[in-house]
């Protein structure tokens, strides 16, 4: 197990390095001079452009810039935004909170509903409910996330007019205290619903498949033959074993949480990471883009290792298998 973990860690480090290199090359080779963008659009003088280029080290060869960047990274410095001059780490931290609020709520709902539906359907495979939910998940898989968001917006904000269109709070009223929380919650409903609907099929399928597999195990028959009530078998034994893959799925999902919600955030004007990435792209704010991308790949890499450990803890058979 330890050896296996070591191997996984090496993969993770390679992955992060790969991301760093790809990221850096792509951004430096791209057309569009960041120095020019920084001085502004109103007829910059040549000296100003030169000054900015020097200040940010944009005149040095690419590999020097890369080594400098790596050196700064080791010291925990992600650089600062070309646009606002604030440290990237701080900017990411600010936006991450909003994204986490949105996506974690949606994830919670999707996991609960998906698992519940999956387990209920697994008890009666091929039944009416099973076929019905199964076809719904198929259709949901075909939905582009931004389109589903727009459709919910159309129905609930435009036609019915019961929920706000977009944003995070009502900026006309200056709510405070509990009313403010309620306001934010109201604005959260549509984006959270969009994300929850999109994630639902995943958890439905995983828990359904796991439940079907568990119910087919021999020890289930043994318990049944021994005379244990079906409900008790289901609650106490089948459920616990069938929930395992869902736990892993949730942790994989956590790693990709930022990328998954980007488009939905943009549709609903939610001030999180997704919207921020779009902003940074149009501003050619390289340090921010690299910082976000790096953070994403590190979080994915770390999550993958966590998943392996978690899996081995939850299911001891696996650590045996990897040892041999």
């Amino acid at each position: 197990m330890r050896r296996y973990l070591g191997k996984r860690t090496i993969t993770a480090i390679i992955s992060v390095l790969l991301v760093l290199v790809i990221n850096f090359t792509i951004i430096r080779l791209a057309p569009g001079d960041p120095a020019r963008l920084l001085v502004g659009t109103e007829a910059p003088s040549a000296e100003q452009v030169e000054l900015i280029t020097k200040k940010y080290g944009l005149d040095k060869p690419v590999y020097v810039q890369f080594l400098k960047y790596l050196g700064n990274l080791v010291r925990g410095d992600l650089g600062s935004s070309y646009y606002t001059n604030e440290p990237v780490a701080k900017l990411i931290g600010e936006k991450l909170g909003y994204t986490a609020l949105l996506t974690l709520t949606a994830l919670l709902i999707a996991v609960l509903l998906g698992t519940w539906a999956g387990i209920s359907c697994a008890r009666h495979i091929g039944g009416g409910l099973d076929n019905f939910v199964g076809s719904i998940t198929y259709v949901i898989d075909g939905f582009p996330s931004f389109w589903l968001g727009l459709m919910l917006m159309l129905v609930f904000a435009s036609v019915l007019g019961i929920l706000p269109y977009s944003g995070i709070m009502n900026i006309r009223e200056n709510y405070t205290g509990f009313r403010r929380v309620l306001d934010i919650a109201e604005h959260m409903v549509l984006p959270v619903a969009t994300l929850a609907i999109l994630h639902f099929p995943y958890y439905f399928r995983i828990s359904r498949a796991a439940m079907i597999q568990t119910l087919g195990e021999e020890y289930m028959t043994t318990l049944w033959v021994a005379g244990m009530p079906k409900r008790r078998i289901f609650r106490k034994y089948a459920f616990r074993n069938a929930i395992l893959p869902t736990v892993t799925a949730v942790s994989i999902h956590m790693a990709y949480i930022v990328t998954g919600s980007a488009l939905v955030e943009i549709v609903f004007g939610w001030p999180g990471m997704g919207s921020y990435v779009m902003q940074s792209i149009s501003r050619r704010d390289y340090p921010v883009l690299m910082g976000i991308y790096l953070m994403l790949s590190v979080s994915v890499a770390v999550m993958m290792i966590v998943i392996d450990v978690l899996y081995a803890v939850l299911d001891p058979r696996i650590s045996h298998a990897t040892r041999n």
Partner: protein
Amino acid sequence: MTRSNDKIAKLNENRHLKLSGKSPEKRERFLRHGRPHAHAHGARRKAVKLFIRRNSRLCTGLGMLMVLLFIAATAGVFSPYDPQALSHDMVAPPGAAHPLGTDGLGRDVLSIILHGSRISLLVGFTAAVISAIVGTLLGVTAGYWGGRVDALVGEFINAFMMMPTFFLILIVIALFGSGIGKVMIVIGLTGWTGNAKVMRAQAMSLRNRTFVKAAQAIGESRGRIMFAHIIPNGIMPVIANTAMGVCTAIMTESSLSFLGLGDPNVVSWGQLIYNGKAYITNGWWICVYGGLAIVFTVITFYLIGDGINILLNPKLRNVM
């Protein structure tokens, strides 16, 4: 499934040819058992019916694909207007002149949707084929070679798999410009990891099969074994995965277009929705129909991919 039934049918036909005009007892036996030709025909029809019933997903998907291809091929004939022609009828609701209404610049939504099918299919196929080729080559190399090569290539596959690809695509397209060719290549070059994993596993299991051992024994080169034996025998799961890859590619292209990063010179569904977003309150038809077209196409390829997987592994039929 059909192949075996076809074989039986063929055998029956041949037997009929062989035996007719031979000894009378044998002819009589044939007469007792009915006309073999008609029987074979019935069996074939039955087999086809059974195949369709058992593989309803695959067949539905293929049927829907036919519809899509037909639409893409005849878009120039059936669309009532030029998809890029502007008119004074801006944000006109669906009616006699414009069956699905017009967008904010007076373009006919139906024409855009019909013509957009070409771009979606083109992007989907090209990107998926690129990723299939890259994935197959890397996967087969890692899986068949084994040892250090596998450690190196396998590690590369794993590392690439961990990278968040949509952000990568987003950044590349935003910085390098958004020609449709670039979009296809970038999507293709970032989506191969699944194919590589599948092909690697296939190669690892095929490596130990007798026919591969035999090829090795008679001294065939590694390259020949990989291309003539391993890939043809292990490609089916990659094809199923590629059908799913078409969905991902179409989704990614429409997402890019929706973010305003699509090729401005082509007619695409994502751009239709991007342009229609501003009219969501007073022109619902722009977004709704554009999205329905995407949903239809994506489901088509999901059905095909799932269908092939079930065909390859009938056990899945109970689980999926």
